[in-house]
């Protein structure tokens, strides 16, 4: 009983911090989404409870749909296909190289990690400088090869920001996979080899089931981080051209801090929260232990 009390006392500071830094602001955000809260104009002087009005408006707003579809493209493209798969492949290759003592593995590890160590805003500006039509590194390089300049951000804006985000975020998945791979007992691989399992089957029937929990946590983490990605896109395209790279996080920012409509902006944030929850539930179900 004393031990239980001690444990409760131990987690109290964490509960306190979580309540004040996460739970209360989230509740406040949900509450705001039902109001006309604004920082400018008539609405700023006439605070009202609107009920579901913001949400009804949101579902009629074509900019919301565009941002929603962009967000799905961005999350699936950069988090799931890009960061997750690429991170996995790099981790498997480095793990293999470590086991076989292949030289140069540390360099690959370092290069991938460098992208992650870089602050997001700096990474955004770097990619912006790479993609720039007039002075960009990519076009200068194409010039050297005698190839015509490409308007990267004009003709393939979403792909451009996805590539930048994959470059930036792959290291995280790679790190998680690398450390997780080390927890798989080597004897299992040895035994399966004797049973005649090939590399794919060893991965499918030994690695994945053992690392199921870690995969779930990693997927939830990168999905949430990508869903909320703001700085990178902001620095590269500011959401343009038009709304072509405006994801929900940029749409929420523009609404809340450029149009100063906090209530409407909060409604967008609540929708983002729901989408994150849906993704989370899907991942947990997908990798639930059978």
């Amino acid at each position: 009983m004393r031990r239980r009390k001690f444990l409760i006392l131990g987690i109290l500071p964490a509960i306190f911090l979580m309540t004040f830094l996460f739970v209360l602001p989230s509740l406040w955000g949900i509450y705001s989404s039902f109001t006309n809260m604004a920082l400018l104009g008539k609405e700023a002087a006439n605070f009202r409870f609107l009920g579901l009005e913001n949400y009804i408006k949101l579902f009629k707003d074509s900019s919301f749909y565009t941002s929603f579809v962009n967000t799905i493209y961005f999350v699936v493209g950069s988090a799931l296909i890009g960061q997750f798969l690429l991170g996995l492949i790099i981790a498997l290759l480095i793990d293999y190289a470590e086991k076989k003592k292949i030289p140069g593995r540390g360099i690959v590890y370092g290069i991938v990690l460098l992208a992650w160590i870089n602050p997001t805003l700096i990474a955004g500006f770097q990619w912006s400088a790479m993609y720039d039509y007039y002075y960009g590194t990519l076009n200068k390089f194409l010039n050297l090869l005698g190839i015509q300049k490409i308007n990267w951000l004009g003709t393939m804006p979403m792909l451009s920001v996805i590539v930048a985000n994959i470059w930036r975020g792959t290291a995280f998945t790679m790190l998680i996979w690398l450390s997780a791979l080390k927890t798989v007992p080597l004897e299992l691989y040895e035994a399966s080899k004797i049973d005649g399992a090939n590399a794919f089957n060893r991965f499918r029937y030994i690695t994945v089931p053992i690392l199921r929990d870690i995969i779930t946590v990693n997927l939830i983490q990168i999905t949430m981080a990508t869903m909320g990605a703001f700085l990178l896109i902001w620095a590269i395209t500011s959401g343009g051209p038009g709304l072509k790279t405006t994801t929900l996080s940029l749409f929420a920012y523009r609404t809340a801090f450029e149009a100063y409509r906090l209530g409407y902006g909060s409604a967008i944030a609540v929708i983002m929260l729901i989408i994150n929850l849906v993704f989370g539930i899907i991942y947990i179900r997908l990798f639930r232990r059978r």
Partner: protein
Amino acid sequence: MKKLLRLLPLLFILLLLITYSSAKPITIKVWYPDELGVKPKYVDKAAEDFRKAFPNVNLEVTRYKIPSGDFLTKLLLAIDAKEAPDVFHIGGTLMPEFVDAGYIRPLTAYLVKWEDWKHYPKSIKDAVRYKGHYYTIPYGLDVRWLYYRKDIFEKAGLPVDWKPKGWDDILNTALKIKNSVPNVIPYVIYAGVAGAGGTVNHGYVPLLYGVKGVAYDVKSGKYVIETSAVKKVLDFYKKAFIDLKLVPQEVLTLPKPWTTMREKLGAGELAILFEGGWVYGGWVTRYGLENVEKTIGYTLMPSEKGAPYFTVGGLGTCWYISSQSKNPDLAWEFIKRFNTREIVAKINIEDPHPVARLDSAELPEFKGIKYLYDCTQILAQAKFEPMAPGISKFGNRVQLMTGRVASGEMSPDEALRKFIEEMRMDFGEVIVK
């Protein structure tokens, strides 16, 4: 008695607090954004005069070296937290929204008694009146020019004393440059979200005024969408961006297209650009007045078919008194000391803008600068930026609409339909005709 003795320390503390609060001097807080470093010495001069006149008042002046948009967010959050400064400095177009939000005090009572108010022309006085009251005093006005590179025009065999005969002439001139001068961007007009305020006041609005269109009906207090006028504007965008490919798509994708395009015109890599009058000063600082006068020409924006020629005027940035100020009289004393004849002239010489005070324009050092003289002269042909509540929402919708056409995502008709739909969603009733 014992109880009374116990209360004594409490009474003592209370007395101390009362003494302290009554002895505390009055503080007037002044906030303003400034990245370029032009304003500080003039603000300091006004502050110095204020401190001489009111030695017992504590004047706290804070300069924020951040972009004006970030300053606005900071200010609005301070207002929301009931910690607004007494005096602050923001764009004139924001006035209606600040009035509607109840953030600023009217200056009417001060202005009618102020000797110098007579030096301001009626057009300016009208521009700062909203719902029957004056709310601010502009000091440096905004005008816009259609800038062009004389050296590029010469290379293309075009006359350097250019006065476009209408919109088609702008497009044809740019097309001629495109076909005859390689490695030069023929023309830039801002569009899309990336162009921010430039898309509205340097792109959409001058075109809309060029077909006698209006954006807001003051009488009914509603936004107006004149479909034929907006359609003509969008057709122009389509021709410039898509059909003739005169304006590069990068205008829609660069994070701050105006920075790049101003640099490009200054460096002779862009031929035609409709931009703010204040941009000229940046070129002069970088390339020298003589060089700029030789290479950069400026002309008024034509209407669709030529005359009338006009500029888009704006109130620039102005000082306001917060409605949270407990000492508005003292706040006014500061504003008054900034808007003197000398300060208004000098600040606008350093950061070239036409002056709002007519007597400032008469000072010889102001009169002697040709560019400023020209800027002040065209005020008579100025059509002012729309001043309306919800202007930022309107601006955002305009950015989306122009961006959709300029990127080729939608036809002008589709973009216009979308614009009407979105404006109705944002403002409820909108006059569509």
